[in-house]
């Protein structure tokens, strides 16, 4: 079953109007605000690139098959300033991601909200666990 690809959602269009020249690319061109997703998986890799980092997680489907999802996250430079480092997200960490799926229907999404398996908020949870940044 294939979900319909909808036209640009009103919410996304508002977003574009709110941040005109400044946006480095259009959210609506890459992700579909009408395709919310929620996935839970364990970290395989954290690609520290800009403007967005990408967290690769192995997600076990209901059929038992494991699919690797790519989740788009914040710029690592901002995260470094929050006191995080590449050691902050070890391989194997369980996370739950809520976001919007990529327009091409693949197993990619933007991570609107990321929490640990125990419910702690992702980046903020990490920075607290490691103490106040220097």
């Amino acid at each position, binding site marked *: 079953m294939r979900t319909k690809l909808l036209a640009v959602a009103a919410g996304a269009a508002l977003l574009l109007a709110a941040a005109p020249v400044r946006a480095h690319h259009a959210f609506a061109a890459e992700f579909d605000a009408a395709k919310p997703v929620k996935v839970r998986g364990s970290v395989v890799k954290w690609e520290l690139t800009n403007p967005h980092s990408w967290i690769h997680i192995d997600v076990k489907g209901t059929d038992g098959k494991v699919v690797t999802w790519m989740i788009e996250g914040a710029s*690592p430079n901002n995260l470094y300033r929050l006191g995080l480092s590449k050691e902050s997200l070890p391989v194997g960490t369980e996370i739950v991601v809520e976001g919007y799926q990529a327009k091409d229907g693949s197993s990619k999404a933007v991570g609107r909200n990321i929490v640990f398996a125990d419910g702690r908020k992702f980046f903020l949870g990490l920075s607290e666990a490691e103490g106040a940044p220097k």
Partner: protein
Amino acid sequence: MRTRLSDSLIPGGLAVGGLVLVATLATAQTPAYRAPRTADGRPNLNGIWQALNTANWDLQGHAAAKGPVPSLGAVFVVPPGLGVVEGEEIPYLPAAAARKKENQANWAALDPEAKCYLPGVPRAAYLPYPFQIVQSSQNILISHQFANAVRVVNMGAPTKAPGDSWMGWSNGRWDGETLVVDVTSLDERTWFDRAGNFHSDALHVVERYTPRSADTLTYEATIEDPKVFSRPWKISMPLYRRVERDARLLEFRCVEFAEEMMYGNLRKKPGN
């Protein structure tokens, strides 16, 4: 007359011999060349520099060879060149040696340089394009023409990297006439050359920049990576100053030249 000649030769010979002895001692203790100083008293490395060798093709010595695009004829071939590796051998661990061969066999498709990816260290120093050193007391900025690559060498107390980066994390210090730069946290995807020489995320490079004349530097880099090599190894080469009056780095973003090979398969098909 002979006597007078020998009379003058012997003391002259002793004098010359004495001078040679003193000179030998002098070179053993201090470098032959002392660079002009910056206003804050450091060897002045400011300027635009470029390597003039084939290290970017292959760190090891090689004869001329066919290029990857036959239709370009002699325009794009592998030029001959002597190696820059001290001792000639690159000491790969057995599994890594196999991967080097695979890289080399398929280099045009695999070399990150072809994609205009940031070149990493030490490759950035011997790409066939100029780079510029901008030297202040607290920082030394090294700007490369290729891909607008840049790194800032921290000349204060050494700091630690929060994550890997393509141009690495550089802490520098002075050792007499030499700028020593310790580079860690290099992204594992850079290569050393177009011959498939590669490394892992454990790469550690120590560079030495030593002025050898008014318009040349000696560049040395010691390479250490226990996941790939059985021991550290070293490269060295001269770097030449670009002396033309209006020498400058020119914009060479190069991404647009790599896009077709990277995204061409995502083009809209005609008739769709």
